[in-house]
């Protein structure tokens, strides 16, 4: 349970900002916010444990990282078209959110408290006992996202607002911007400016 609490505490860390901007974009996609939130957290969780366990050691710099940013822009473009059937559109949204979450969790360099430290130190030698604590940490970190997704279920008017086409396109544009900034290696700089302006 300590991992959940530390995840909640980490919401205010300057190191976490790189995760929240695109998470907002994912929420604004509109359709099925609960499903998209679950996709976001599960993908981030898998990427995080892969990194902690040294299964994923690709550095978040260089050509592959930039190329993934470009792919994200391409997927955002596909979501922007908004064609085809409802199910296909939802599938594109899920793919877009999963890819965004994986990319930003890959990019994320965490500031590590004692609980996350236990997870990372333990995962280096024996990852399996750290799988659940990592999920708890990520759940705590994205608790605001869960709350907003739940609120759209509880208040249909809020769901209607998020479901408007221009809100959805704002979300897609935000994700595409993140992808483009990653591609040109400026994402950290933008996050820094946000951190400075928010006086964190």
């Amino acid at each position: 349970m300590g991992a959940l609490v530390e995840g909640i505490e980490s919401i205010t860390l300057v190191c976490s900002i790189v995760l929240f901007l695109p998470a907002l974009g994912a929420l604004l996609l509109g359709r099925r916010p609960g499903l998209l939130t679950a996709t976001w957290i599960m993908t981030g969780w898998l990427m995080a444990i892969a990194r902690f366990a040294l299964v994923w050691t690709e550095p978040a710099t260089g050509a592959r990282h930039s190329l993934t940013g470009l792919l994200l822009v391409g997927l955002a473009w596909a979501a922007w078209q908004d064609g085809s059937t409802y199910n296909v559109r939802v599938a594109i949204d899920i793919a877009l959110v999963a890819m965004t979450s994986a990319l930003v969790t890959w990019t994320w360099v965490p500031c590590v408290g004692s609980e996350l430290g236990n997870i990372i130190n333990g995962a280096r030698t024996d990852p399996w006992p750290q799988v659940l604590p990592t999920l708890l940490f990520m759940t705590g970190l994205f608790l605001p996202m869960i709350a907003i997704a739940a609120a759209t279920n509880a208040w249909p008017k809020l769901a209607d607002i998020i479901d408007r086409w221009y809100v959805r396109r704002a979300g897609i544009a935000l994700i595409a911007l993140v992808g483009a900034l990653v591609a040109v290696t400026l994402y950290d700089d933008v996050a820094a400016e946000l951190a400075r302006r928010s006086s964190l």
Partner: protein
Amino acid sequence: MGSTSAGRAAAATIALIAIGLLTWVFVKPADNETAASAPSAASAADDRVPNGIDMSQDNNVRDDTITNNEAADSDATPEPTPEPLELENFGARMSLDNLDGWLNTDITSLDDLNGQVVLVEMWTFACRNCKARIPYNQQWYEQYKDQGFEIVGVHAPEFSFEAEIPNIEQALIDLGVTWPVALDTNKRNFHDWQEGRTGYWPRSYLIDQNGDIRFDHVGEGKYSDLEAAIEHLLDNPPAPTS
């Protein structure tokens, strides 16, 4: 989107938040060792058994870092025989290359500290978890510096404002950092030292007199274990290697 499912979702969210808040209030003081709770020697000593191992955080002890047999039985007998502390040897340290300079020191290389016990800490001044370690470092620096202990902070900035030297210098003053600080602005050493080029703030490596890494920890915590390791290396220097 029926009202039943909406109600369930809202109830689940409220329950989750309530559990989090309750845990925050009731659990945190007991299971965390924070900067606010234990920067003093007296408080650190209170939760330690005579052999120097922190019993309040034995779940934090990485088995391959410190081995202290039967430490959990410390209250079984009034005078337990202290077992020798055994520190894992993680191999020779790397060097600090391609730095952008040093602050708070005249040294120009980690090699200048050969023969000393050196705590190398990866950090950046805007990182809250890094700042939480500073009171402990201050205490150890004051306590052990004259016995052959040194600290080197490797400042690896996350954001551009953390890379500006005037900002770093001001932060060192504000935070009370008096030990040598290596400027690793491009984070080459930050990534090179961490396996798989991963990067975490903070990360602490304790280097023995031969230049081998004897303690390795990511994040906050394990303060008493680290202090025990420092004391052990100062009191029991390894045999010199050729």
